[in-house]
C-alpha cells in the first residue's frame, strides 16, 4: 500500500511539476508583454511632459505646468488633435484604443477600454535658498504612473523626470 502511494506521488510530481512551471512561463510571458506595453506608455507620458515644459518655458508660463496636478489629485496627459499637450483633471485615467489601435483617453466613437491607466502629477523644485519666503520655481519634477489589471491583480510602474525652466 505504502509503495503504491509513494509510486503515485512520485509520478504526480514528475508530471505536474514541469506542467506547473510551463503554465507559470506563459503567465510570465503575458506579464512581460503588459509590462513592455506599460513602459512605453509611461515613456510617452514623460516625453509629453518634456515637450509641454519646453513650450511653456519658451512662453514664460513654466509655472503653470501641471499646476493643479498633485499626488493626491493627479491628472491625465495626452496629445490632443496633434497640436496641444493636454494635462487635465479627471476621474477616469483609463486608456482607450481607437479603431487604429492608437492609445488615448478619448472615449468617443468605437473606443475600446484597455487594461491600462496613466496618471501624472508634479512637484515644484525650488532654488533652495534658505529664508526666502517664496522661492522661484526653477524646475518641476513630473511623475508618471501607469498601471494595468489582469486576473484581479493590479501592477504599477512609475517614473519621473525633472524639467527645467530654461528661459528664466
Amino acid at each position: 500500500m505504502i509503495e503504491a502511494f509513494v509510486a503515485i506521488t512520485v509520478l504526480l510530481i514528475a508530471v505536474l511539476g514541469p506542467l506547473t512551471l510551463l503554465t507559470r512561463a506563459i503567465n510570465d510571458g503575458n506579464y512581460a508583454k503588459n509590462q513592455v506595453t506599460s513602459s512605453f506608455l509611461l515613456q510617452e507620458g514623460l516625453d509629453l511632459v518634456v515637450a509641454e515644459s519646453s513650450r511653456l518655458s519658451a512662453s514664460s508660463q513654466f509655472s503653470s505646468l501641471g499646476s493643479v496636478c498633485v499626488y493626491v489629485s493627479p491628472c491625465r496627459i495626452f496629445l490632443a488633435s496633434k497640436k496641444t499637450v493636454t494635462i487635465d483633471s479627471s476621474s477616469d485615467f483609463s486608456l482607450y484604443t481607437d479603431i487604429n489601435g492608437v492609445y488615448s483617453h478619448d472615449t468617443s466613437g468605437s473606443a475600446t477600454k484597455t487594461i491600462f491607466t496613466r496618471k501624472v502629477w508634479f512637484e515644484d523644485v525650488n532654488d533652495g535658498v534658505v529664508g526666502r519666503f517664496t522661492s522661484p520655481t526653477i524646475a518641476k519634477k513630473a511623475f508618471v504612473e501607469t498601471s494595468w489589471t489582469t486576473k484581479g491583480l493590479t501592477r504599477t510602474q512609475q517614473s519621473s523626470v525633472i524639467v527645467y525652466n530654461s528661459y528664466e
Partner: protein
Amino acid sequence: MSYSYLKSKNNTAKKGFTLVEVMVSVSIFLIVAFVVTSVFITALGAYRKSKQISLLVDNVNYAMERMVLNLREGTGYNITNGGSDIAFMSSEGISMGYKLSGSNKIQECKNSECIDLTEQSIGIEKLSFEQSESDAGLPPVVRINALGKITTSTFSTSINLQTTVAQRNTSQ
C-alpha cells in the same frame, strides 16, 4: 519421493500472474501512459506558446527602442507613405528612416540601405508615425504605434505598443 515431487510441481504451477492480474496491470499502465502523454503534449504546447510570446515581445520591443532612441536625437522628421514611413537626419548627420516593409517587417534604413529589425516569424500588422503640427509651439513630437502579431497553427498572440518621442536635438 514421487508424492513430494508432485507437490512441488503443483506449487510451482501456482506461481505467476492470473489473467485478471495481467489485465489490471496492463490497464493501469495504459491509463498512466495516456495521462503522461497528454501532460507531455500539453506541456509542449505551453512551452511553444511561452516561447512565441517571448519572441514577439523581444522583437517588437527591440524595434521600438531603436526607433525611440534614434528619433529622439534626430532632426527633420518627414513622414510619408500614409504614416508608415519616417525619414530623418540622425545625430551623426546620417540620413535615416524606419518603415514597414512589404513582408510586414520593421526596417531601419541608413543612407538607403535597409535592414530588418524584426524576425521572419513576426508579422508587423501596423506601423504608424504621426507628428505634431509645426505651428503648435511644441518641439517636434512623433507618436509611434506598432502592432506585432505571431501566429502558429494552434496559437496567435499580438502586442500593440505605442510611445511618443519629443525631439531632444535642438541643433536644427
